[in-house]
């Protein structure tokens, strides 16, 4: 008798559980892009514009600001990268937190760099959709600012290195170039062309304390640099 009652209750429990799960699943799917973002991402990223206005804030920042995602990044790239994150900034967010003295020169202290959290394909699709709706700073980007064209890799590199001195802080292929800025060999895969023009024209408009100096590039040079970044991204490093 006692056995029967226990059995009955455990069956009931199973039914209740199954009902609970089947009711819950669609609810999770409906808003989970935002849920994932809230629970897994906002400890390091900001999604409403709050760029560092002091150096202290710059040093303490844990991840890039994502409040302009919709006008800054390419959707397909974000979706792929979140499933298979590959390092973009060789010395982390603020290089000063990740360097040590080496034999000849200072070196990146790779033990202090973190691996980026990974998402499943489904999670990445959902989060990317939510992120692409964020469009702060839209006033800084002019749609159609970039006029497609081309430049040879040789000429582009000459400009990036010899004439403008950008190579000092940016790698143009894995293992070649400066380490304090993000690598640029995937920049055109990651970032929208009109954003690239806008950022290179005036980095401080996006990041008042940016480590990237404003080199007062001419409009024609801005266009050529984006031609070059696009050519570089075709190399598939």
């Amino acid at each position: 008798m006692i056995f029967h009652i226990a059995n009955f209750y455990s069956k009931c429990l199973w039914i209740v559980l199954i009902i609970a799960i089947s009711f819950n699943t669609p609810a999770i799917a409906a808003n989970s892009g935002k849920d994932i973002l809230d629970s897994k991402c906002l400890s390091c990223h900001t999604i409403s514009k709050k760029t560092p206005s002091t150096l202290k804030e710059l040093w303490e920042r844990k991840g890039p600001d994502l409040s302009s995602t919709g006008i800054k990044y390419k959707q397909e790239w974000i979706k792929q990268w979140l499933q298979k994150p590959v390092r973009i900034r060789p010395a982390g967010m603020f290089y000063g937190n990740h360097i040590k003295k080496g034999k000849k020169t200072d070196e990146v202290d790779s033990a202090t760099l973190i691996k980026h959290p990974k998402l499943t394909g489904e999670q990445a699709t959902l989060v990317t959709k939510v992120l692409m709706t964020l469009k702060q700073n839209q006033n800084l980007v002019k749609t159609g600012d970039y006029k497609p064209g081309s430049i040879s890799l040789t000429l582009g590199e000459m400009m990036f290195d010899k004439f403008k001195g950008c190579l000092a802080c940016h790698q143009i292929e894995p293992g070649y170039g400066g380490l304090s800025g993000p690598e640029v060999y995937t920049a055109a895969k990651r970032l929208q062309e009109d954003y690239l023009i806008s950022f290179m024209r005036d980095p401080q408009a996006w990041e008042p304390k940016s480590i990237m100096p404003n080199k007062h590039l001419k409009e024609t040079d801005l266009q050529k640099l984006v031609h070059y970044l696009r050519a570089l991204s075709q190399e598939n490093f």
Partner: protein
Amino acid sequence: MKYAIFIFIYCTLPFFSVADASAETAKDNYKTYCVQCHGLEGKGNGINVPDMSTQPRNHTDAKEMSARTDQELFKVIKEGGQAIKKSVLMPPWGSTLSDGEINDLVKYLHHLCKC
């Protein structure tokens, strides 16, 4: 009413302090913007140096550093290497730092070279 004023001042306080904090110390500016090329100790050997075609100046080298006037140092920091016929790899910091902050950096360079 008294409370309202108090709350108003309290809530707007952060805006005032942000404005105050906008001038950073030379030490902090150097650490943020110069160390990447000039190195943790200012010896011209930062993390970016291995693939650079011109080496950054060693700021602890009293002989080299005292060869420049303060006006020249100010100019090279504000307008970049090309402004004094030096390498384009030394960037212009005029859009990043205020004139006051650049003047403070010139003083800081004297502190580094002890000259």
